């Protein structure tokens, strides 16, 4: 073992892959960067026969995506969230929401709602459990197919946030069922999700987006179209109506959820910005926006036009999505 050897490597101040950077790495960079090993060998992602179906799936839908970049690992989450800080952040947020639930329940909030609004909640609000679940599924798909761990991490926390929204909805569904037995709360949501016209646009959009297997197309379909459409319609517009119906609880809850959505839009914006560094990607992204936006707009129309002052709600929601897409330098 004592043959002529190259020089003995000296210890470094950080991981060797970060050692060339001028800045001292943050905790975020230390624990988040270059963690995917299955993207190291594009020919064969896994240490198994290279022809197994999962190897094909990753070759095609991860590194074989139509969206190209020489170094996806250079992506950084603008919020620099890591697991530890995510839980600090969201435990604080959940303490706030649980406080709302507690306080509003204490003062008999649900019993004071007007009957017409309660019927609207059964139709426009509680079936959203299914819709939020589609975002959970879509985010989990982006998580597993993204070509860099820093992208995967953003999708990881977005998946958990979607389960958070679903959980709020489930919780409120049970409270409303307790306050209004016989109105179908906790029972009719699936039927409404599958049959009520107001949900069919979102159902079509998300079912189709959930089989967009190219990771970057899934990202566009969810993070640039479906999520903003859901947020603008089922969170922002419904929240506005709730406030005007004196459902302060739903008004505050939707505002709390929008803080997650705003964070998701920040990382989505950063990722689009990075993608646009590569020639050809603008056309790819615009192509996907052109494919998915009509479904997003149709979903908003189907849902919002049935809301009180529905036409304006639909216009506002569609504008919200359009403004977001245009802020990314894309064509809506």
């Amino acid at each position, binding site marked *: *073992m004592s043959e002529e050897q190259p*020089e*003995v*490597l*000296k*210890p*470094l*101040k950080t*991981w*060797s892959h970060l050692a060339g950077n001028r800045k001292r790495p943050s*905790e975020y960079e*230390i*624990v*988040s960067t*270059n*963690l995917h*090993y*299955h993207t190291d060998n594009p020919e064969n992602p*896994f*240490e*198994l*026969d*290279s022809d*197994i*179906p*999962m190897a094909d*799936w990753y070759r095609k839908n991860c590194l074989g995506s139509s969206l190209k970049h020489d170094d996806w690992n250079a992506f950084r989450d603008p919020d620099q969230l890591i697991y*530890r800080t*995510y*839980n600090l952040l969201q*435990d604080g947020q*959940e303490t706030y929401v*649980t406080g709302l*639930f507690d306080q509003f329940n204490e003062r008999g909030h649900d019993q004071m709602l007007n009957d017409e609004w309660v019927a609207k909640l059964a139709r426009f609000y509680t079936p959203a*459990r*299914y819709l939020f679940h589609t975002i*959970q*599924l879509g985010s*989990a*798909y982006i998580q*597993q197919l993204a070509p860099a*761990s820093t992208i995967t*991490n953003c999708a*990881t926390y977005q*998946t*958990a946030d979607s*389960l958070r929204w679903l*959980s709020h909805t*489930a*919780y409120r*569904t*049970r409270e409303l069922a307790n306050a209004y037995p016989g109105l179908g709360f906790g029972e009719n*949501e699936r039927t409404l999700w*599958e049959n009520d016209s107001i949900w069919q646009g979102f*159902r*079509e959009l998300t*079912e*189709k987006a*959930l*089989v967009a297997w190219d990771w970057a197309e899934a990202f566009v379909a969810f993070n640039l179209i479906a999520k903003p459409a859901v947020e603008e319609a089922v969170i922002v517009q419904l929240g506005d109506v709730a406030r005007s119906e004196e459902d302060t609880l739903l008004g505050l809850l939707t505002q709390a959820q929008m803080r997650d959505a705003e964070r998701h839009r920040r990382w989505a914006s950063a990722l689009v910005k990075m993608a646009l560094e590569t020639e050809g990607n603008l056309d790819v992204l615009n192509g996907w926006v052109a494919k998915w936006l009509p479904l997003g707009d149709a979903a908003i129309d189907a849902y919002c036009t049935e809301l009180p002052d529905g036409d304006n709600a639909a216009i506002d929601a569609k504008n919200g999505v359009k403004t977001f897409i245009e802020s990314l330098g894309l064509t809506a």
Partner: protein
Amino acid sequence: MAILEREEWYDLTRTTNWTTKFVTEEEFYPDEMSGHRGIPAEAWETYDEPYKVTYAEYVATQREKDAGVYSVKAALERDAFVDRADPGWVSTMIAHYGAIALAEYAASIAEAKMARFAKAPGNRNMAVFGMMDENRHGQIQLFYPHANVKRNRQWDWAHKAYHTNEWAAIAARSLFDDIMMTRDAVATSIMLTFAFETGFTNMQFLGLAADAAETGDHTFASLISSIQTDESRHAQQGAPSLKILIANGKKEEAQNLIDTAIWRAWKLFTALTGPILDYYTPLESRKESFKEFMLEWIVAQFERQLLDLGLDKPWYWDQFISDLDETHHGMHLGIWFWRPTVWWDPAAGVTPNEREWLEEKYPGWNNTWGECWDVIVDNLQNGKPELTGPETLPTICNMCQLPIVGTPGQGWNVKDHQLEHNGRLYHFGSEVDMKIFQMDPERYQNHMSFIDRFLAGEIQPMDLGGGLKYMGLSPGEMGDDAHGYSWLEAYSTKKSDDAA
């Protein structure tokens, strides 16, 4: 109470299956990703996760756990335990982080696969928390070793190992890619969570945590025992899947998945955990032998759980039990002999006192592995260290990607199990490794082991130096004896004592 109890609303969070309309159910849940095996959605909806947690409970609990673990780290970092720890223990940590951190992170992807593709809504939600847990375990097990990169270049391998073709990294990827990265959601719940996490992570995390506490490494002990609290929750995703498979006539398939995963995990542990627990950990800090831990955490646990579920012990169980006395000693001897090819410094762990312990725990050790170590000790004492290191490469198993080992000396049973398949000759370390290959050759057949790559000329120059370069190992990273051979002094002392 103005707050609802979890039981009152929990079921609604997992009432989330619907009938798709705009795409077919098969498009939505492709069998290759979902693994529903034709079992209808209603059957998957009976999935009942034993450990229930809500989002709010999860973030609160995990915040608290991290606060505890990170504050212990901060307090103990000032203490610089690593600088005065036994070198064998330092090697334990370096080997552990390199072999574990990125695999845990990768497990978050496997969890996300269940979160997207499981037809069981309860599984989908629990896998979101599992995905979060593994995100934690990847991150925290990078943050801890990063504090030590300034000490020695081997610590860099906590991040680097999985990105290299170092042979142990290839073996680790081979296992984890097989049981979690390339399986459908249902198989993942069984192979990763039921077979691997229920037993084997207990071994790695609780076994090692017990030894860590004994050595005084409270940072490491608190870290890995905290990790295990997550594992023991998300490991419970597999059993409900098994129940559904069994109830729907898929018992044999379920059994095969378990048999494969347990054997493959066992083999990696013989190279990773066996040497750590029985050789690297300082003698006075060893709580139990590897075999004792295995009997307690793996054998007893699986025997009970498998029977409870109506499954059988794996067909190779008798061989497995007898291998508990053998395989890891061979792996340890091989790793120490080929020490430049690993990213940590293996501790020999064979002073006369340690041999006494080994003989007590593994009767017959001195007449078998002991004889090999006698030769090594003689060569070192006689100034012939070159005879205690490699000039060639070992034969590698085409299944586990680990060296083919057996019992040497008076118990000689080393055997290369060979199989010709489609005109290619494959080598296996055991009948079980070969059988796993034969059950599903398409998963493995065109894969090249380290030796196959060497023989194919992919590794140049074709010598040890070329092999080290291919593995990404440079001086400063390559392993050497953890104690700088100082343990030989115990033999000199013993000789003079014997002479007196």
